């Protein structure tokens, strides 16, 4: 089924809950965050749709996503001589969102659901009951982006430590300098003042010219 037809079907079934048709590289529908659960159930159970497979569930932070297409991924003020970015410490704004990539093994069509939630109250209905695989994906979205999933059976952090603070994939996330006493920035061994004692000019390196014939007999 065409994506526009799927969107029309959803719209006729759920009315206001289906907000917009998304026409990007992939086609999909923007739906209301609170009603994702029932829409998902319909998408899975309807015979003509049959979206039994949730391929991927992505949590994302729309902060800084420039609608003109000329925006920058992160808030970058500029670059130093070596091209390292200098980022601002601005507090992020903009919505958070979730994207569900769906696939119907029966009919072979795809559809992507998009959800946008305000940053202040990022709560989306859970689809873990519809597609159990979403359980871990939603935990990941909570862990990394900080989106709450209402009705999730066990919303814990999954990849980071339980005691971790903040959600790294938010655009305004600032990396802590240390965690539980362990410095996280790593030591910069090359940063120190250059002295004569540090001269370690490699003298015995082999050059590509020294390459000889690799002798690899297949042991038959």
């Amino acid at each position, binding site marked *: 089924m065409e994506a526009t037809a799927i969107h029309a079907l959803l719209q006729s079934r759920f009315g206001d809950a289906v907000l917009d048709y998304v026409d*990007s*590289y*992939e086609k999909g529908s923007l739906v209301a965050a609170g009603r994702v659960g029932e829409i998902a159930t319909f998408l899975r159970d309807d015979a003509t749709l049959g979206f*039994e*497979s*949730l*391929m*991927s569930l*992505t949590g*994302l*932070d729309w902060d*800084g*996503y*420039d*609608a*003109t*297409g*000329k*925006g*920058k*991924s*992160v808030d970058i003020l500029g670059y130093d001589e070596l091209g390292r*970015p200098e980022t601002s410490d601005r507090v992020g704004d903009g919505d958070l969102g979730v*994207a569900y*990539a769906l696939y119907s*093994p029966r009919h*072979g069509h*795809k559809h*992507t659901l998009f959800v946008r939630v305000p940053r202040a109250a990022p709560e989306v209905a859970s689809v873990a009951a519809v*597609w*159990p*695989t979403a*359980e*871990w*994906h939603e935990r990941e979205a909570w862990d*990394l982006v900080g989106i709450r999933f209402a009705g999730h059976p066990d919303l814990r*952090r*999954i*990849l*980071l*430590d339980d005691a971790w603070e903040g959600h*790294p*994939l938010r*655009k305004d*996330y600032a990396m802590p300098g240390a965690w539980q006493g362990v410095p996280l920035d790593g030591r910069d061994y090359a940063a120190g003042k250059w002295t004569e004692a540090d001269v370690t000019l490699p003298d015995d390196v082999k050059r590509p010219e020294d390459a000889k014939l*690799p002798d*690899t007999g*297949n*042991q*038959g």
Partner: protein
Amino acid sequence: MSETATGRGWAEQDVRRELHSELLEINMGPQHPATHGVLRLLVRTDGEIVHGVTAHIGYLHRCAEKIAEGCDWRQWMVYTDRFDYLAPINMNFGYAVAVERMLGVQVPERAEHIRVICAELQRIASHLIAIGTFGLDMGAWTPLLYCFREREEILNILERLTGGRMLYNYFDIGGLRFDAYEGFERDVLDFVNIMEQKIPEYDTLLSYNKIFIERTADVGVIDVATCRAYGCTGPVLRGAGVPFDCRKDDPYSIYDRFEFDIPYGEGEQGTVGDCWDRYMVRMREMYESCRIIRQAVDALPGGPVKAEDLKKLVKVPQGSLYTRTESSKGEIGYHIFADGGSKPFRTKVRSPSFSNLHVIEKVGPGMMLSDLVATVGSLDIVLGEIDR
């Protein structure tokens, strides 16, 4: 100790109530030989019988998706290597295909063919490890060493081709970083000839060994419905009897030109979807990969290996796309959100092992401890890809 979900099969003979005994909570991992990396399974057991499994992951987490936001499109290819470090080329392939689709770039024919050859070689290498370590989980040491011996030959070819033995960083957006060396085709064909002779040897030594069959048949059965619900893909889904393969059903690159079959589990030694089926799917896929490699080498054209009309600094127009390709573990998907800039806005990696591992919490309860080891082994997980 809390009461846990009632298991099936073995767990039905529950004598705990009579004996006033409790379940034993035992940590399998993060340093445990059967967990294939730094995975921690919290297992609740009653003697040898498992009553509950909880997987704790994240020990290898590097937040590559965050790193992506600071890299440009080409640079992040390096990090895709590090997801599935047993099949980096397949990871590269997925990312390259994803970005090329968004850019609308036509990859030169020669590059496409070399890509397919590399990806299939890598698939064989990854399956060899899966088979070898699965045998090791069953206590058979020797097949592991044989598998590694054959894998070395693949690594030798890839080393000559790319310069790396483990992490290649060979694919580039719009093609390859450099052309194949002279004699590449012959090396590949030599290897394929040897490989096809070795597979029957593995079959005799391991696949059709009675003890091995007893250990794997009817063990860890994952049926189609569970696979769909838990998002299991790759050999796990095919082992459950569904001939689904992204190379055929959602074709990318030039896979639609090649003739190959999709092996799937038929319950030859036990139930459809048991460990033996998953194992055998991998074994047979190696044959199919050899077939694809032969066809790709035969059809290998000359010409450039990089798309001509691509700038050094790629800028992907705004929009999002979920692209999936078939890695050796299953469906590797990249859900990419581009904002028109020179860096990915958000890149979600849907890794196959992540979903494949999740199912262990469902099928784990009710089996014996040894069966749990067998099931985890048959899922063929790679923690670098789960934790990203």
